[in-house]
């Protein structure tokens, strides 16, 4: 009997040790320094998208009018000079990314990841099961994000976003949008898929994937920002184009020889079948040379 007990105790100890080798909570460590890899997205992510390029985006008429009215010098207003990208767009910026993890000191369970880019605020992703705040709570650039493990993939739900944009050419994303993120790590590569659902400005979920590569030599420095007077203008003036007066909207079409109608975007333009329709459209009446240096910094 005594021997049996010893055997059982030994087995239990072995089981406990085996359990101790592998974390109880299936988790991949996303913490570290990540450098952006742009690939085919370089023109959009580094120099930025061209004016009037709405191609392939599932936007509605309201989004189109907001973007058509958008004037770049809006960003010179003191209120917008230090605005960071929202949680969905920040992945598309050109900045390096650092991800830190937060652990429960007792259980060693990861309770949160904190993602931060060069020009962002802290974007925490809570893994401790807390609920999202009430409808009355403050909205933030990073929103309120909670994550759940799906095998080795971390699936994140982001709510409580401030208004942002799906492109840096004035295409808006409303504060009513929610974002789902999937973080996937393959060795030294991090792939993040973001899915934006916006009942105000999108007709379909807007899905993008973005890659980063581990960079042990990277350190994201501080990036202070102070508001200054960039342009002196009478108080109360907001730069914008009145409907029908933005003469820059055809530039993209004319530089790339794409029918203007196609550049206006919409869900239809995102699907392969649209090519057939495209062939039947007249090319732009006038052409312009492409913008120089669009591929600088490509990796």
């Amino acid at each position: 009997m005594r021997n049996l007990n010893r055997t059982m105790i030994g087995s239990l100890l072995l089981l406990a040790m085996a359990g101790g080798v592998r974390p109880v909570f299936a988790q991949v460590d996303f913490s570290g320094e990540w450098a952006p890899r742009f690939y085919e997205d370089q023109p959009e992510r580094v120099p930025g998208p061209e004016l009037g390029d709405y191609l392939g985006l599932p936007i509605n008429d309201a989004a189109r009018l907001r973007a058509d009215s958008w004037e770049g010098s809006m960003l010179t207003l003191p209120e917008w000079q230090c605005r960071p990208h929202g949680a969905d767009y920040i992945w598309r910026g050109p900045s390096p990314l650092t991800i830190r993890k937060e652990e429960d000191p007792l259980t060693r369970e990861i309770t949160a990841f904190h993602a931060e880019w060069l020009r962002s605020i802290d974007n925490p992703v809570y893994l401790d099961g807390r609920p999202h705040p009430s409808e009355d709570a403050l909205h933030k650039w990073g929103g309120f994000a909670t994550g759940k493990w799906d095998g080795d993939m971390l699936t994140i739900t982001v709510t409580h976003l401030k208004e942002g944009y799906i492109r840096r050419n004035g295409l808006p994303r409303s504060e009513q949008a929610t974002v789902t993120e999937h973080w996937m790590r393959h060795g030294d590569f991090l792939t993040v898929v973001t899915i934006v659902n916006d009942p105000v400005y999108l007709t379909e979920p807007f899905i993008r994937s973005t890659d980063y590569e581990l960079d042990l030599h990277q350190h994201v420095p501080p990036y202070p920002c102070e508001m200054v007077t960039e342009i002196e203008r009478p108080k109360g003036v907001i730069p914008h184009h009145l409907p029908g007066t933005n003469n820059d909207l055809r530039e993209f079409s004319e530089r790339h020889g794409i029918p203007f109608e196609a550049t206006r975007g919409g869900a239809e333009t995102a699907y392969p079948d649209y090519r057939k329709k495209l062939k039947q459209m007249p090319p732009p009446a006038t052409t312009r040379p492409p913008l120089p240096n669009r591929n600088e910094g490509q990796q």
Partner: protein
Amino acid sequence: MNHIYSGTTKITKSTKVSWSLWLCVLCVLCGSIVILPAHAQQTNEIRVTKVRELLFMLTGAGGNIAALVFPEGITLVDSGRAEMSDKVLAAVRMLSPLPIRYIINTSADPDHAGGNEKLGAAGGQITGGNVAGQVADAAEGAEIIAHENVLERMTAPSVKPPIPTRMTPGTTYHVDHLKLSTFYHGDGIELFAAPAAHTDGDTLVYFRHNDVLATGDVFMTASYPVIDVERGGGINGEIDALNHILDVAFPDFRLEGGTLIVPGHGRLCDSADVAYYRDMVTIVRDRVQDMMKKGMTVEQVKTAKLTRDYDGVYAKNAGWTPDMFVEAVYKSLKKLEGKR
């Protein structure tokens, strides 16, 4: 049970008075400072959002209400609709058992000032000396403070039936700016008149030390601004008021947080939210003005659907449609033209 970090709790009718509340009462009776319950179990439609340690936003009573708890009592900004007074009072009692000392009205609107009578009656002023000696009931009821035009609107002969005196402001101001002292009101409170904005009697209420600004209906998160031209409101005054909020507010790092804004309706905000709203209101004003310069009638301007890129966000107030907003902007600008 709500977690404290969510910052919002619901008031239930069958309120379980927590031990912490009784402790709170005990502390007050003992002359100690107020201890607020960390979270409270509550029912009806009133939701309480913690804005700062002792400053709260009450939502669901009509217009939003800001409540500041201080050692001598409670200062409220607005009082909600009259029929919600009991529920508001129950919510306030969850925050503190102390008397409501002051109610500051941001306008004369019934959804902001409707609860003045009942909430005011549940409070009491800090007074004494010759005043208390001469007027027996001087200390009865909270002191109601507002812009002078709020009093004018409430007591106008055209108001039928007449509004009870106890519902009207007893203290008014007619200048651009009024300071209320920290000692009596729990914070250095600044009242900024916002002339000809939503109405002609709007007040922006700034809690200086708490760094919180209650805007009344000058700023709302899910509705176009209600420009009440008949009661002295105007689109340019509205834009001026929004810019004034941005002048007063200090954003924190990367335009997030800092001065917190309690809007007239809707969720808790910061200055970036006001900036988005200011941009929208200014852009719509410019669009309407442009069409007016081209000789368009108000019907033609409305037909152009000049707000259609914002309607998904702001056309949620069934009582104030985009067409009504555009018409008010048009009329307001016409009124200005007439003055030139």
